[in-house]
């Protein structure tokens, strides 16, 4: 697995798949049982100090000192990264501004809400201006607004040229902001590519939804007889307009032929569209069927 500079790489997989272990190895917190990993060209086993200077790590827990204020908390970690007093004074207010906590700088950390603590944690990971951000479940346990805020922050950081590697169980977040996705199951990377390529490679049928005003029986007959059509499911069939969804194993020419047959059969089509295969579908298919996913592993 490789993550290129400037990428937002989403790392997903079921519980116990090895996401956090991978992150802990990359952050030099866990020694690999075999092999090595490199961050910015530095070995996580032999050049740990260099790796640590290069990464910002945000775990899936807060790790807060309740007695400190927001400003002091960041100043403490700035000290741990050996920042000079001048750099501290310059970076802390800017970071608080970035994570929208500037007006809370004198508030005790323990009094912050969960979303605020998460944003503070993100500010902490950025205190030494790292090139690589490694985030374990950054949006876990947050309400929808806080999730959107974190997502926007990650986008902003990526636009600043940071490489972001993060895990999440919230697949909509991953599909929305990631440039590439890795899927891990039982300690093995089973797929790694852009969402579009993964979809193309992993899902070999097209999901099509049609809407019609009348001729439901005829449509049903055409679809049942057309080669490659499966999983025909009525979405709405009580009263017009009717709606059906099905899978079609075939190329674009087959899609066009099916459309033509429906029209020639006098079915009053009001819509005919191919549905996008979302990340959830890809995830379910790969983690449900490891044999399939191993075959389509896409080294990048």
């Amino acid at each position: 697995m490789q993550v290129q500079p400037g990428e937002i790489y989403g790392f997903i997989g079921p519980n116990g798949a090895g996401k956090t272990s991978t992150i802990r190895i990359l952050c030099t917190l866990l020694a690999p049982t075999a092999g090595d990993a490199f961050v910015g060209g530095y070995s996580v086993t032999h050049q740990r100090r260099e790796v640590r200077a290069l990464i910002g790590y945000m775990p899936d827990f807060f790790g807060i000192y309740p007695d400190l204020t927001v400003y002091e908390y960041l100043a403490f970690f700035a000290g741990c990264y050996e920042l000079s007093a001048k750099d501290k004074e310059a970076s802390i207010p800017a970071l608080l501004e970035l994570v929208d906590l500037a007006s809370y700088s004198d508030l005790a950390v323990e009094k912050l809400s969960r979303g605020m603590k998460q944003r503070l944690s993100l500010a902490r990971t950025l205190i030494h201006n790292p090139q690589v951000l490694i985030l374990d479940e950054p949006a876990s346990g947050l309400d929808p607004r806080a999730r959107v805020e974190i997502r926007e922050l990650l986008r902003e950081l990526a636009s600043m040229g940071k490489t972001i590697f993060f895990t999440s169980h919230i697949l909509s977040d991953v599909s929305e902001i990631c440039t590439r996705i890795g899927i891990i199951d039982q300690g093995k990377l089973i797929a790694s590519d852009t969402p579009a390529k993964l979809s193309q490679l992993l899902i070999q049928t097209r999901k099509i939804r049609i809407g019609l005003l009348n001729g439901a029986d005829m449509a049903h007959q055409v679809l049942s007889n057309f080669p490659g059509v499966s999983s025909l499911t009525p979405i709405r069939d009580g009263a017009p307009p009717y709606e059906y969804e099905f899978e079609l194993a075939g190329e674009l020419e087959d899609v066009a032929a099916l459309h033509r047959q429906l029209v020639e059969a006098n079915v009053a089509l009001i819509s005919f569209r191919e549905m996008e295969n979302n990340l959830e579908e890809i995830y379910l298919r790969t983690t449900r069927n490891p044999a399939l996913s191993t075959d389509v592993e896409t080294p990048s």
Partner: protein
Amino acid sequence: MITQAVKRLYSVYHWFSRNPIIEKELRSRMRGLRTFILITLFVGLISISAGAVLSLLSYTTGQAGSLAIWQRSGLFVFSTVFLIELALVCFIAPALTSSAISSEIERQTFDLLRTTLLTSTRLVLGKMSSALAFLMLLMLASIPIYAMAYTLGGVTFPEILIAWALLLWSAVFYSTLGIWLSALLRRTLLATVIVYVFIALFLFGIPILILGTLLLFEPLGFNFSSEPPIAVLYLIYLSGWVILSSNPLTAAIFSEVGWLNNQSLILLELPLSGNSFFYYLSPWIPFLLLTSLGTFFLSRSTIRIVHRQDQ
């Protein structure tokens, strides 16, 4: 030479002043009512003890004007204050450090620190220094009581200095013991319980053991004045000296006894037989040496344990 020393001193100061752990620990500790209450109780307890001793002495003797009585009062106040302060320091010191490393693990901040550039040496020494700085504050707060004892007389300045050295070394040693157990056991509650059991046994167990041995041997007819062979006597004195020197309480008491009997704070003597004597260093000296060694090895071991946890 002097420039070198000053430069070295400055680099040490710089090293400590740039340690973020010290600043954070002191900031957290001094915040809120907890510290204020602790200092008040500490000074209050010592003051009440000193006051009680003075009142008791003036009540029992009834010769408030006599110089000898004043001097004896000074010595009593000094001894009482010192012994209470020693016991307090020995119990407060590990309380400040027995959670030093384990609390970071329990609070889940240890991993965060490990991913920074903070070394295990800076972490451990930072924790120890902040605990010691706080203990020094407690000791400084008790200076006026010592000043009162010194003004009354009966106590010399070197005695006060030695008492302070014993307090300081005890604080350093027991703090180090606390942080060592905290790193080793990784659980605050367990580390605290074990360190207190150890200190209770060490601080009070040894004096009780000595007293018990004397009480046990006397009814059996073992008479120290019946002049046993010189080698046996020598061994008894030597082992007694080692045991007394390993405990701050007994080291302090027997150093003072040595001072009162021999008028020396360095080299003391005990009659063996005839004209031969058993010469020994006043127990406060080996105590300082032993605790210095103990502190060195325990702190080195703590740094290694923390470093190993970071592997």
